């Protein structure tokens, strides 16, 4: 069964259609990169999969492990094992980072019929993961993303992903705004989660991240649909020839 099966998805905000008939299949264990110019609908795709209420789905289906995803609330999707790494993670002053992490873990455990996580075990997992991501443990006791730099926010997203161990991770421009050290740390975090049972969709504008996280497939999104798919060499071609190349190819 496919991890993610999107068929002819048309979606947008109000009357503004952004996704214009997108189809995509992701199998367990695969890493897909979705590339495309600004405004092609990359972030919309990520937010529609996560269940953002501003977006309306006009047509098409989105299935996750055979289940209709569009019927589920955002929190239900998360508990089923979908994780969205935000392009712009929100700052939530006053909500403790550790509280959120623990509440998220427990929400998922409850959904799976498990009891709450042991406080000691939780701290241990959080600290180990932070060490891997080269994050200072003090971040655990700060407000969610409060006063974090761009790179720290992205590491925090990867921390959440690594602790929650989703079945499907969609990482929206996780590489944007990162310096080379942060990029490597984030890539390490992603690679550590590669697993035959887990799928990862990387939404990105540049192929830079793909030097560190090697995708199995690369898709090019243009004007709301996938216009070209290939292996990782497609990303390199794009880097060389620019997005105009696929745009022209698509309209030709």
């Amino acid at each position, binding site marked *: 069964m496919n991890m993610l099966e999107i068929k002819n998805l048309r979606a947008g905000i109000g009357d503004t259609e952004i996704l214009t008939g997108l189809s995509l299949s992701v199998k367990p264990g695969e890493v897909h990169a979705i590339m495309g110019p600004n405004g092609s609908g990359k972030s919309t795709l990520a937010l529609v999969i996560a269940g953002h*209420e501003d977006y309306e789905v006009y047509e098409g289906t989105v299935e996750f492990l055979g289940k209709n995803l569009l019927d589920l*609330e955002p*929190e239900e999707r998360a508990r089923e094992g979908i994780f969205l790494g935000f392009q712009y993670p*929100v700052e*939530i002053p*006053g*909500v403790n980072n550790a509280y959120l992490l623990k509440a998220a873990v427990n929400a998922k455990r409850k959904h799976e019929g498990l009891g709450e996580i042991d406080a000691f075990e939780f701290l241990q997992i959080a600290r180990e993961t932070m060490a891997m991501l080269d994050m200072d443990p003090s971040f655990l006791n700060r407000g969610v993303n409060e006063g974090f730099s761009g790179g720290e926010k992205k590491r925090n997203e990867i921390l959440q992903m690594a602790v*929650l161990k989703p079945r499907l991770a969609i990482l929206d421009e996780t590489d944007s705004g990162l310096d080379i050290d942060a990029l490597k740390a984030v890539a390490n975090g992603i690679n550590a989660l590669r697993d035959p049972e887990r799928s990862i969709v990387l939404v990105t504008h540049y192929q830079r991240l793909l030097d560190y996280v090697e995708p199995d497939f690369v898709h090019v999104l243009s004007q709301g649909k996938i216009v070209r798919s290939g292996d990782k060499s497609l990303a390199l071609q794009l880097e060389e020839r620019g997005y105009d190349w696929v745009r022209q190819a698509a309209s030709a």
Partner: protein
Amino acid sequence: MSAISLEQGLLEAAVTALPPDALSAVREAAVASFAANGFPTTRHEDWKYTNLSAAAALSNTWLQDKPAQNEAQAVAIDTEIPEQIDAHWITIINGMVDPDSLSNLDSLIDNGITVSRLTDGVDEGSIIVDDPMSAFNAALLQDGLYIKVADDSTLDKPIGLLLIDDGSVAVTQVRIVIEVGENAKLRIVECPLSAGGDKQFSNSVTQVVLSDSGELDFVRIQQRQKHHLNVNRFAARLKRNSVLNYNNFEFGGELARNDIVADIVGEGASVNLLGLYLAGGRQHIDNHTRVDHRVGPAKSTEEYRGILNGRARCVFNGKAIVHAGADGTDASQSNHNLLLSDQAEIDTKPELEIYADDVKCSHGATVGQLDKSALFYLRSRGLDKDQATQALTRAFASAILSKLAIDECHEYLVSAVDRQLDALIDEE
């Protein structure tokens, strides 16, 4: 609702019928003073949004029965507060000081703390009547608490005041008189509660004098029942280098009106007012604060926050008046509100009146809803809507809790805020 006024004749008859005691002269003087104004109505600017008709109607009915002398009776009220907040507790029931709880504090005299009942005797003019509701309070006063801290004295723990309206008396008056000596420090936690199913009206006044370098931390945690009508006045006079930290948590009651008044008469004094109101259903919570900077340099800060749901109606009016010559005044006010429903309403008005030249003043107010992107972020991590709302409202409230003046009540208040927020969020 057309305005119902308090019937002066009923008040006079009731006061005359009370047996003579140490407070007789106070009552008689106050009746005359009350006659000039009666209850404030919504025609008064300061009472524009808060209608006391229900309180007046209840008082008229109650006065008709010519209230007899109150007795402080030990009542069983379900509260875990004294176990959860470490303090020297005194119980005041329907305005009457419970003598047993008071005798527990006799030993505090060794620390320079005198605590007594107003019925034990008061000096002439020591019961202040400076607005219509404090006049009504004094006119029906049968008891009250007097706390005096001698110069250079301090206490290991706060004094806790359990103000209980047990339902046996429809209209109650509480009066607390506090004097903090020079270089002395006092901390008070006040917890108004109520029992019984009938509508009740409580009208309380706390009057404070802070001598030079004296300090008072005062935390009020009002959690009365939903049908309770509360009018409360806290008025403090601050002398040189004295400090007042007043924290006001308003959760209960059908109506709660607070007038917090600080009069800065000594240079170097500092007033810090902090408030949190959580209102749902058809609750009406009105906080009016007024800080008079009569001399400078002196400092006042004020931060009130509110979370409203249902058809709650709240009012914030924060006024700082910098009088002529009060140079070096530093005054700031802020009021932030979170509206969880379309039908909740807040009227907020921070006000500055400045008659001096060299001052630093700022004020601001915000009214908003829960941050949608934060809500989605939390839900995308698996928290359901209520849980996410809880987390965000708690975060909003924590800005006040983190500045709490009395550590001993922090833990209790955190859980009380959580309980109140749970109830508010459940309402939808």
